């Protein structure tokens, strides 16, 4: 290793000397960025002028073109943001942040554990089989998943109420009782996303340089110690990146999970109302473009602050793994 590093330092020096080569390199690498950069400019950056709608009372003028309408619509300051400040605000922020924090931690621990277990199985066939099966929930939409949950909880024909009836217990009407829903939602979330994230971690584990395991084994490290000292540090960049990105979405919620799975039951709002469902329901009544873009912008701003904060923290501890 050391020999190689010394070698590479020399090469680096040689390259620096040749500025023509450096320019050529920069040129060719830049051409690689072009397709993506052009796409970003056209499809992502060009529409960003639309952000001003959050501060306007958007309506149509003559001639009715989108650009003209935006220019002529009157400025209303922060008026479009006001609807987010309602008696429900506390509940929806608590739910959004609470569930997200819980699920980020649980999701991380369990999916890393699963990925490690799968990578350590001697039976490759079984590892494959597990991985395939764990990915299945990812194929099913929340609407379909909600039917599945309904089959268990339906007050008349669901499996759990039927069992309660058969054993003489009082029958629960799950769609009007909030008690179990934090648990149900957590199970649903893990069920759907674990397969996905453990695939990412598994792929990261496969990329770990094998010599490290060999070195550890030669030093007499047990398998558990190898996981602790080789595997986990090896996938640390992936863990940190996914963590940062999840923290950036901490103010956003998976709409289908909170809307379809509880069958949009009003009685459950105290534990299912999140920012996205609140905005959706508000929009269903007002159809105000300004309001929904204001909510989106606010979520983005909070996300940005969280990501920058998390990234700054990571950069202090482990600059190699930071986002930028």
């Amino acid at each position: 290793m050391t020999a190689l590093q010394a070698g590479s330092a020399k090469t680096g020096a040689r390259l620096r000397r040749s500025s023509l080569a450096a320019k050529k390199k920069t040129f060719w690498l830049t051409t690689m960025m072009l397709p993506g950069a052009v796409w970003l400019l056209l499809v992502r950056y060009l529409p960003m002028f639309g952000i001003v709608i959050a501060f306007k009372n958007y309506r149509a003028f003559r001639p009715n073109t989108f650009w003209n309408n935006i220019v002529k619509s009157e400025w209303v300051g922060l008026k479009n943001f006001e609807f987010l400040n309602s008696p429900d605000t506390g509940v929806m922020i608590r739910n959004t942040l609470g569930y997200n924090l819980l699920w980020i931690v649980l999701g991380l621990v369990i999916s890393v554990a699963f990925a490690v277990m799968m990578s350590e199985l001697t039976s490759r066939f079984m590892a494959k089989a597990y991985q395939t099966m764990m990915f299945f929930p990812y194929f099913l939409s929340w609407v379909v998943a909600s039917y599945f949950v309904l089959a268990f909880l339906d007050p008349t024909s669901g499996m759990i109420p039927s069992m309660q009836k058969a054993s003489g217990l009082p029958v629960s009407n799950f769609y009007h009782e909030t008690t179990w829903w934090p648990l149900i939602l957590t199970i649903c979330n893990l069920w759907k996303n674990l397969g996905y994230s453990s695939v990412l971690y598994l792929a990261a584990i496969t990329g770990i340089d094998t010599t490290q395991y060999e070195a550890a084994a030669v030093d007499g490290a047990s398998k558990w110690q190898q996981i602790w000292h080789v595997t986990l540090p090896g996938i640390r960049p992936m863990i940190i990146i996914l963590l940062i990105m999840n923290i950036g979405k901490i103010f956003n919620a998976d709409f289908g999970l909170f809307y379809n799975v509880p069958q949009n039951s009003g009685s459950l709002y105290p534990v299912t109302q999140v920012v996205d469902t609140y905005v959706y329901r508000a929009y269903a009544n007002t159809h105000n473009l300004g309001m929904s873009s204001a909510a989106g912008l606010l979520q983005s701003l909070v996300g940005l602050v969280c990501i920058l904060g998390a990234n700054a923290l990571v950069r202090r501890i482990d600059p190699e793994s930071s986002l930028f």
Partner: protein
Amino acid sequence: MTAISRSGAGKIKAGSFSLNRFSAGTQAFFHVLLALFSLLCIIPFLFVIIISFSSEESIRQIGYSFTPKSWSTAAFTYTFQLGDALWRSYFNSFLITVAGTLCSVSMTVLYAYPLYRRDYRHRNFFNFLSFFTMIFGGGLVPTYVICKNVLGLSDNYAALIVPMLFSPFNVIIMRTFLQTTVPPELIEAATIDGSGEYSTLLRIVLPVVKPGIATIALLVSLAYWNEWFLSLLYLNKNMSIMPLQYLLMRMQRNADFLAKNSSMLGAEAAKAAARLPSQSLKMALVVFIVIPIACAYPFFQRYVIAGLTVGSVKG
């Protein structure tokens, strides 16, 4: 590097065999945990299959159930009667997924690779260019206006592919894969050998990050396969290019709409609701959607697991 590790593995294997795998008991424990969770994941899909074979009366009377009162293949018969429309939407879904995945993965790799190169001058700029769009966006309507009026995305396949061609999230994931799997020395060695940037990427880097690429390809193709909202936005007249997922979502959304507006529509809603396709038909379509991607999955997985055999040293 690869050569070194392979020969090293050969030497170590015999001596430290026991240190490099878990005991049978621990393995069994892993199996139990993973098997339980896998079962939990697969049961809902079996459930969907059961519903799709349930008779309509059974669903009406006892709801969705693992043990329907009676069975029926009516949903599948009906689905096959859709005939042309079904196969065409199948074809569209395949076309969109394959073309979209190819383009998207190429763009992602091409974008992520220079970001991974610490010696690339503009990496901070491009990194930010992509990251910023992950957080901020112009919103639905402005994006629609640009895509339709500037890019001409309307009633064509491009409209169903281009808007999701590139994902900053995937770029970051890809960059992380490159960071963890490709040692910078590998690239420097190639540069000394006089290899051009593109040929280094294609011949040296790509083979090493295959598991990463397979993972990205899996995520991208799933996203394309499941996409229906783009069809809702951009398909107005040319319905012959409608993908399968949109066919299903339309049925779903029609039912939802009638439920929400029945008080306004009155008898009209009741009439329309009575004409809607049955629940078992919807589940049959779910089966149609899930099966191809479930079949394609092992293909992607081969690369992920192929990495495993190289990456670990168990016999």
